[in-house]
């Protein structure tokens, strides 16, 4: 398979649409056609696109809840361990036992937030498989319009429903103004 040829394998099609409404309705059709490996690239998140693409709710929130819990428990442990066990000091008439809990609350709160925020950043990078410095799509001049004012749909060749002819026809029938085949990087 590793023979040297001029034509690289196809990554998939990209199709440009006129505006948000057009790509929104096109996405509903593509979803109903049963495609799995496809995406809609836009300069901003299009409201309601999740439903149009048939996407489930993001599970990032679960990750962040775990992050927050870790932060809170860490702070609780850190403070109890150091203030009650290791180095108990009576300051400002506050006891060195469980009833000092209110005084520990600010740090518990801050660390909960801090680790939740780390979970957001880390979770996003992991879920989105970023950072990625290069990508086949970024080689296409048409595709790069997505960060300006382009509404671009991409359907990957890896999708079981993908076919060079029919997928192109489908995209054109949905009102794409410009359909382009993107090569994979090898």
């Amino acid at each position, binding site marked *: 398979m590793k023979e040297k040829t001029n034509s690289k394998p196809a990554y998939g099609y990209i199709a440009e649409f006129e505006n948000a409404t057009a790509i929104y309705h096109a996405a509903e059709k593509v979803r109903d056609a049963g495609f799995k490996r496809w995406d809609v690239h836009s300069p901003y998140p299009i409201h309601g696109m999740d439903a149009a693409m048939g996407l489930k709710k993001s599970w990032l929130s679960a990750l962040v809840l775990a992050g927050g819990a870790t932060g809170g428990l860490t702070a609780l442990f850190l403070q109890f361990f150091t203030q009650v066990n290791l180095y108990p000091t009576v300051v400002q008439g*506050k006891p060195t036992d469980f009833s000092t809990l*209110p005084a520990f609350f600010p740090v518990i709160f801050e660390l909960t937030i801090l680790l939740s925020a780390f979970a957001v950043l880390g979770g996003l990078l992991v879920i989105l498989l970023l950072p990625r410095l290069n990508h086949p799509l970024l080689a296409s001049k048409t595709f790069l319009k997505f960060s300006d004012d382009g509404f671009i749909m991409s359907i990957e060749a890896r999708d079981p429903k993908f076919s060079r002819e029919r997928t192109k026809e489908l995209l054109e029938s949905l009102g794409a103004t410009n359909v382009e085949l993107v090569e994979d990087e090898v």
Partner: protein
Amino acid sequence: MSALKSADDFPKDGEALNQSKTGLLKMAFLFVGVAALLLFAILAMTGGGEDGEVSRRSMMAYSWLFAVMFFLTLAVGGIFWTLVHNATNSGWGVLVRRLMENLGSVTPWILLLGLPLVLSSDFKNALWEWIPEQAALVEGGEKYAEAHLESEKAKRAKELQTAKTDFKTLEKVTASAITKAGKNKGEVSFLNERLSHSKTKLAELEEGQLDDKALTSELQVHFMRHGDGEHVHGNPLLYHKSGYLNISSWTLRYILYVLGLGGVIYTLRKWSVAQDKSGDPKYTLMMRRWSCGFIAIFGICWTFLVVDWLMVLDYTWFSTMWGVYLFAGSAVSSMALLVAILTYLRSTGHFKDTITMEHYHLMGKLMHSFVIFWAYIAFSQYFLIWYANITEETKFYLLRNTDFFNSYTVILLVIGHFFIPFAALLVRQVKKTPKLMVAIAAWLLLMQIADIYWIIIPERGVSLTGGAQMIIPGAIWFDLLAFIAVGGIFGFLLLRSFGKSSLYPSQDPRLEESLNVVN
């Protein structure tokens, strides 16, 4: 996604309350409320009690304050949400705005239900110690002044006489001493100073020769601050506060609260209903503009209302956060009540095509944020008082964090008023499920009852028994009775207000935004 809803497809006169479905409940509320009210009144009137024991009437004063205060927080929250809706130029909430207005419009009635607290001196004396104590001080002061007027007058006259003679002698002595001193400048100036000093003293004494009226009031003040020096102690603190805490200005302020809060919601609701008929957008502008200013009236009235009725249950205690704390609880619980009302109305066949789960979601978010806000304010207030540990402040919590009320505080208020609703409302799907939302709303209302109960009732045992008993057994039944009485009337008034106009502002120019809201 279906097409958008157009306001033109909905009837111009909105949706009327289905009286056949809600009328029974309304009358049931009225009947139960009035019956309980009568029973309560009879029990209170006959419960004078004998000397030396805690009278039923004084226990019932606390019950009444608790019931009135709880429903007042709900109603006042309605005013708050109306104001916020108008002032923020909100579009999504148009459909539920009339519910807020109706809830708010009950406020003046509930305040009038508080009249027994203002009029009945037994109620007042049982609740607010400063009133009988001040009255006693004033009375004692009058007697003291009467008794001491002549002797004080004579004493002062005599003092003046002596001082005058002394001064004359001193003048002569000084004159001769100055000639003796000659050129000793220090000596001369000392002598002169001594003379002028006693001249000032003389002038002071002369000023002290007051007429009867002025002297009487001076003696009264003296009595209030220092007592008679023998048997009765004065109360300098209460005297210090009497500029604010005196019965006439306290009553006047009550009238101002009724006028202020009632006037705000009456005006806004009037404009809102007028728009239902004419559809004139000028009302929208008027409501927005005036609401901004009304917020100031609302804030001032509410802050001082809770100072006058709740904070001074122990007049020696104080907290700058108090108004904000009561406001936070009021906002969250009235939003909970709005959710409950909305669901009730939907279950009786109203709001069929208008209200969607998006509205529930938004109301859930507001509820959630104010649960957090309440916790923030409650924690800050507790925390600062706990940390600084100053006796005059900690007494509030000492009373409420001991014995029975301790577990009550921690378990109900900390866990129940914050952690449980906070966790439950985190989930998006919960906020879009009316049944769960109503459950949470009911829970939050229960917690608001607990909060108000916790603020008022611990004072009862301590105040009435002089600290001998924390809790007066059996008094809880009066609390329940008062709650049913005020609650019944509250429910009746609320349902009645719904029947008076369309259930939503049918010709509000922003109606379409609310019909099609997505978040």
